[in-house]
């Protein structure tokens, strides 16, 4: 802002902020892409890959992410430690049950640039399975990012007025009983 003093402007430009995002009912890939952009600092006009200007990102409710399609059953996470017989393949559902934060962590790790700064950026990413956040992180948070996917409303969440306002598309025949 032009009304800031020089030191305040410097501080506002180069400070590392703490951002919050709620992953409830969101696809983990979209959450991860938003996180990776913020962790690298690509959302800032002063971006340079060598200047360490990424922000901290806190993701909550990672236990309640929603995969599209049948990815919970079809997506397989494979790992091999290098020793013989240690090839492990886990479906996304099994992975999520073992560790509710692993899916988003792996997704963000794969989206960050493959260099040495990746590990420091991963250290700046905080994942929480539920919306219970520690006090020191809560005090640091500055901004909440909007959710990438619009959550559809269940039928029970519509009010009676909205249901009445929706017109009936067809009339059942007079002798039809079961509904």
């Amino acid at each position, binding site marked *: 802002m032009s009304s800031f003093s020089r030191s305040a402007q410097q501080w506002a430009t180069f400070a590392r902020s703490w951002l919050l995002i709620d992953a409830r009912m969101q696809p983990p890939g979209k959450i991860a892409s938003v996180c990776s952009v913020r962790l690298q600092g690509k959302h800032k006009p002063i971006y340079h890959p060598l200047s360490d200007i990424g922000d901290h990102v806190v993701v909550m409710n990672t236990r309640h992410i929603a995969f599209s*399609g049948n990815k919970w059953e079809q997506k397989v996470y494979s790992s091999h430690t290098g020793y013989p017989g240690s090839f492990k393949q886990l479906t996304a559902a099994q992975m999520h049950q073992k560790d509710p934060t692993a899916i988003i962590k792996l997704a963000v790790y794969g989206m960050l640039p493959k260099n040495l700064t990746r590990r420091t950026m991963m250290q700046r990413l905080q994942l929480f399975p539920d919306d219970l956040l520690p006090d020191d992180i809560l005090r640091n948070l500055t901004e909440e990012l909007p959710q990438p996917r619009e959550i559809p409303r269940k039928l029970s969440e519509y009010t009676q007025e909205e249901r009445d306002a929706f017109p009936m598309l067809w009339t059942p025949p007079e002798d039809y009983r079961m509904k």
Partner: protein
Amino acid sequence: MAARCVLQSAGTALRSVQSDLSSKGLLQRTLGLSQLTFLGSAPCRGLRQVVEKKDGKTTVIEGVIEPTSERPQPPDPTASCPIYRWSLQNKYNYTDVLLLSQFIRSDGGMLPRRITGLCAQEHTKIAICVQMAHRAGLLPDHKPPLPEGHVPKPKSNPPLNRYLTRYSVNSVKPIYKTGLKWCKKRMTVGHPALKNNVRYSPKPLYIKH
């Protein structure tokens, strides 16, 4: 259609269809639609008032249809399929639960085509959207009724959230070998029947993720 039932004496039991209340004397029971509040507007066809008239030894029970209330007119009343009548073809999705709930039974199944009047293609599209909505958990009150005295097993894991699921959850196998880029085994999202839906973004609809 008036349901006429002539009884010999007042002592015989009155036969009625779908009545939960019964009281002596003049009975006012409503036939027709059950008390399902999730249905759209005010009754779609006239509810029948059961009127009992007694003259001497004969009792006449008649179902009198009330006149239907005013309903909004569809934009194209000449079409045979309700979706075409309201020009909703290619415009609905699995999230439009208010539309989908008009074509389902209370236990979640689809109503027959000969009753709803849908054309074949739209009936399949609605069935696909209803299936996806059930799997996404958008129709929580339309579950099939459990048998009497059945205690559901305590589920250890919380249910996984999903949306746009094409295949049934238990029928899908994991893709252990996805293959190289030119022959990759993709995971399908959504259904190709909805590929003609109106899209307001320049990107095409991706079914294979």
